[in-house]
Structure formats: C-alpha cells, structure tokens
C-alpha cells in the first residue's frame, strides 16, 4: 500500500482501518544527521573539484570569454564570423572529421577481429595475448609516434622492405602526409577500441551461441544474428571514445602530418604561435569542444551510452 501524505492516513483512520498516526519522533534530528553525513562524504570530493576548477572550469570558461573579444578589445563575434568567412577553417574542420572518421574505421576493421580473438581465448592465455593491447596503451604516445616516423621515412624499414620484396620500385612518401597520420593514429587509438569491445564480448553468454546453434543456425549465421548485435554496444562505445579522442588529437598529426594535415588542434597552436591571436584560437577551441560534446550527446541519446561507457548494466 502506498500513500502520499499524512492526510491519507487520517482518512484511513476515519474509515475505520487502524493505521497508527504518522510518527514524527526524531524526524528533524534524523534529517539533520542524514544531511551532515552526506556532506561529510561529498566533502571528500572537494579537493578534486578544486583541481578541476583550476584546470578545466576556469581556463575553459576564460577561453569562452576570450572567444567573444574582438581585435579592438570589446565584445564582438568577429572570431566566429571569420571562421565562416575563411575557407581554411572549413578545410580544417573537414580534415579533422575526415581523419577522425577514417581512424575510427581502421580501428574497427582491425579491432573487431582482435577483440573477438581475445574474447574466444581460454582464460589462461588471455593475460599473455592481452599484453599486445596493453603494452601500447602504457607506452608513451610520443615514443610510438616517433617509432612510426622512423619506420615510415623515405629510407625507413617499410620502404626498404617493400622495395626488397618488389612491392614498389622507388621509395614512397609514407610520412608527413595523410597516410602517415592515419597509420600513426590508428596504432595509438586501437587499444581504446579493443578494450571496451573485449569487455562487451566477454559478457555475452556462451549459451546464447549454443542456443542459436541448437535452433539450427549455421556458425556464420549465429555470429551475424546473435553475437554481432550483442557486441555492438561495446563496439559503439569504443568507436566513440576513439572518434572523440581523434577530434582533439595533437601530437601525432603534428609530427606525422608534417604540416600537411592540418587539424583543429594543430591550427589552434599555429594561430597562437604565429599571430598570438587569443580570440581566434579560443573561438576555434570552443567550436571544437562544442563539436565533441555534440557527438557525445547525440550518441548518448541514441545509444544510452552511460551503460556502455561506464559499465553500469
């Protein structure tokens, strides 16, 4: 029986049912104690919140403010207007989304089979093969970017190897362009896709596949109609992480793109280094942030992301 207020109790009393009157013993003291305890607990998060305020809230807020300050010093939308007027900005955003999309695609194509392989391994082998995913994850991305720079250069191992094998005749330009950027970024992002995908695959009940088989599905059909859809949330979560990280990525495009792949992040630093124009750089940053949030928001709405990202089922 659910009741909404004290009145209902009184009513019940009148109709003859013997409910005791609502008790107010200690009500105030209990509420105060509850509040005190909650605050005590939440106060444990205050130091971390101070750090976030210093590093995220205040700086980003400040940039937001700066993006509305024109060259003359007053409030102005000129920083945003420029973004619409100049073609170079549009090109930057196109490049950024293109690189992010292609990187995500490569990661899915390589990551799905790898995650599937890992998820099917007997328990005692997982730890060993998982190192292949974890080791890059734990290694400095600057070091990994550097490694690709060395491997992909004109006289690098890849070109040597390909020429020796007769794949191509003279050295091909593999770095300081889009190819190099994509190779490097896919390598760096792959673990971010494989780990959530692997976790999602691990949660798929083996009996589901048994049931599909038992009901007459061929292995391929069972995979495509049962396993694949069940692993989809993990794949989407992983892809989203990769995509969002790519949007704001700096080091790898800066080094492997060699100035030919201009992403939003590299343009922001270029503006600051060359023109020292805080307004323009901030506006670009704000748009990047909004784009990122928009992607997350839409994905969250469509896919109930909370669950996939934070593992709450």
């Amino acid at each position, binding site marked *: 029986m659910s009741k909404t207020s004290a009145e209902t109790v009184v009513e019940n009393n009148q109709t003859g049912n013997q409910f005791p009157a609502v008790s107010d013993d200690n009500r105030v003291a209990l509420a105060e104690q509850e509040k005190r305890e909650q605050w005590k607990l939440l106060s444990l998060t205050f130091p971390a919140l101070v750090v976030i305020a210093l590093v995220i809230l205040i700086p980003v807020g400040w940039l937001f403010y700066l993006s509305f300050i024109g060259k003359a010093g007053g409030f102005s939308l000129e920083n945003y207007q420029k973004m619409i007027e100049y073609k170079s900005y549009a090109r930057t955003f196109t490049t950024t989304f293109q690189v992010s999309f292609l990187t995500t695609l490569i990661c899915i194509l390589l990551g799905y089979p790898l995650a599937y392989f890992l998820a099917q391994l007997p328990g005692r082998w997982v730890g060993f093969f998982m190192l292949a995913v974890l080791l890059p994850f734990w290694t400095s991305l600057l070091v990994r970017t550097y490694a690709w720079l060395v491997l992909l*250069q004109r006289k690098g191992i890849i070109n040597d190897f390909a020429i020796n094998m007769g794949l191509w005749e003279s050295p091909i330009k593999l770095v300081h362009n889009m190819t190099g950027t994509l190779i490097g970024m896919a390598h760096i992002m792959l673990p971010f896709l494989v780990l959530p995908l692997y976790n999602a695959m691990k949660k798929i009940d083996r009996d589901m596949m048994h049931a599909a088989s038992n009901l007459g599905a061929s292995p391929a059909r069972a995979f495509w109609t049962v396993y694949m859809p069940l692993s989809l949330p993990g794949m989407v979560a992983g892809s989203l992480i990769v995509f969002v990280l790519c949007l704001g990525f700096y080091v790898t495009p800066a080094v492997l793109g060699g100035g030919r792949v201009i992403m939003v992040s590299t343009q922001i630093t270029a503006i600051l280094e060359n023109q020292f124009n805080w307004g323009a750089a901030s506006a670009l940053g704000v748009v990047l942030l909004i784009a990122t949030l928009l992607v997350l928001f839409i994905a969250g709405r469509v896919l109930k992301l909370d669950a996939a990202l934070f593992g709450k089922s």
Partner: protein
Amino acid sequence: MSWWRTPASSTQVTHGGRLWLYVLAAIIMILLIIPTFLVIPMSFSDSQYLEFPPETWSLRWYNEYFGSRKWMRATVVSLKIATATMMVATILGTMAAYALFVSGHRLAKRIFMLLITPMIVPVILIAIGTFYAFGKFGLNNTLTGLVIAHTALATPLVMIVITAALRSYDLNQERVAVSLGATRIKAFFQITLPQIKFSVVTAALLSFLTSFDEVIVAIFVSGGSTATLTKHMFSALRDYIDPTIAAISTIMVLVSTVLLLLTQAIGKK
C-alpha cells in the same frame, strides 16, 4: 594434428576452420607491438641516420643523452612532476571515487561526470586554457602549475580504476566492520583499502605514466628550467630526427613495459 579438429567456439567451429582468425589476430598484434620495439635496436646504431639493422653498434646516443645537461635536467623535472602527480592524483581520485560510490546522493552522478571532464575536453583546449589562466595566476613555468594540470588529467583514470574495484568489492564487509565497532575511517583503512590495494597501485602507476608521458600541456605550461622531457623530445622531433630520442624512447619503453608487467603480476596474486 588432432588439435585442428577440436571445436574452438560455442558453435563447434574447429580450430582449423578458424585459422584465418588466428593469422589475422597475429598480424594485428605484431603491428601493435613491433614498431615500438624496433626502436630499441636502432638506438644502438652508431650512425647519424637511424638504420635497421644498424651497421655498427654503439652506445653513442646513450652517451649523448646521459651526458647532456639539458636532457638530464628535463628528465629530473619530468620525474619530479610525475611523482608528485601520482601521489596527489591517487589520493584525490581514490577519495572522490570512494565518496561518490558510497554516497548515493542525487548530486553524486553529476560530480562524477564533472570530475571526469578532463577525459572529454580536448587536451589542446586544456593546454591553451591553463596556459592562459596559469599566466594570470603566475603558475606557468612552475612545477606546481604542471603538477596541478597533470593531476586533473590523471584523476579521472584513478577514479575509473578505483570505482571498478569498488564495484567488485562487497561493501558489506565495511558494514560488518562498523557493526563490530570500527569507525567508518578505520573500516576503510583496515578492511576496504587492503582489498583494493592492487587497484590503487595500478591507478598510481597509470597516473605516473600519464604525467610522465604527457606532451601538450607540458609544451605550453612548462618551459625554461621546468621544461619536461616530453617537451624537449617534441621539439627535437619536429625539427629533425635526432637519434638521441631513440635512446630516450628505448628507456621509456622499457620502463612502461616493466611497470605494466608489474601490475599484471601483482594483479594475478
């Protein structure tokens, strides 16, 4: 080999029928691991140009690194900042993760989201934002400033690791301890902490590496005598391929590998 005929999956596909998957996975894993490790032999080359395999072997680039005042100072700065970040982020992150996990307050979820924003906000934005704000606070080019910035970047990782650990922990243990007469703080330190300690160690190592490997914020916020190792490496990379970096990379790869294997080893216990 009869092994090929044994079923490998729930749908009775045999290992033989899965050969393509094993080959594909092997290639992908090689692509993930090998590039980084190829740097190791190259770092022992005697040549100005990085070659594989090196024609002549030498420790030239290691001498260059260990003999350089600039590289050594940057390394010490990076180690100091990473150590401080590790300690601060692990403590703050564990405190926050525990409080939010236990609380159930209606604000808890929002605070959690707020605290993991450094994972969502593009790092370049954090970098230029802190550069600007820290300029006003006088925190640029200071160790404190960089530790604060790196703590913000590392705290979300700590929180995610610790929250995952708490999720697989039976909080009733803490309740039992309290019913037996322990205060909540005692119960946390005597009962909960010993059982999530491996996750705390993992979180600490992750925060250390997050700070030590961090590039973009360091490029902006650090400088002069507080310039980090990664800042120097980055500028060396952009200008020309300095083989000294191969030597430094080798050291960094080895450190990461050792730390990772360490967490795997203690995790198994």
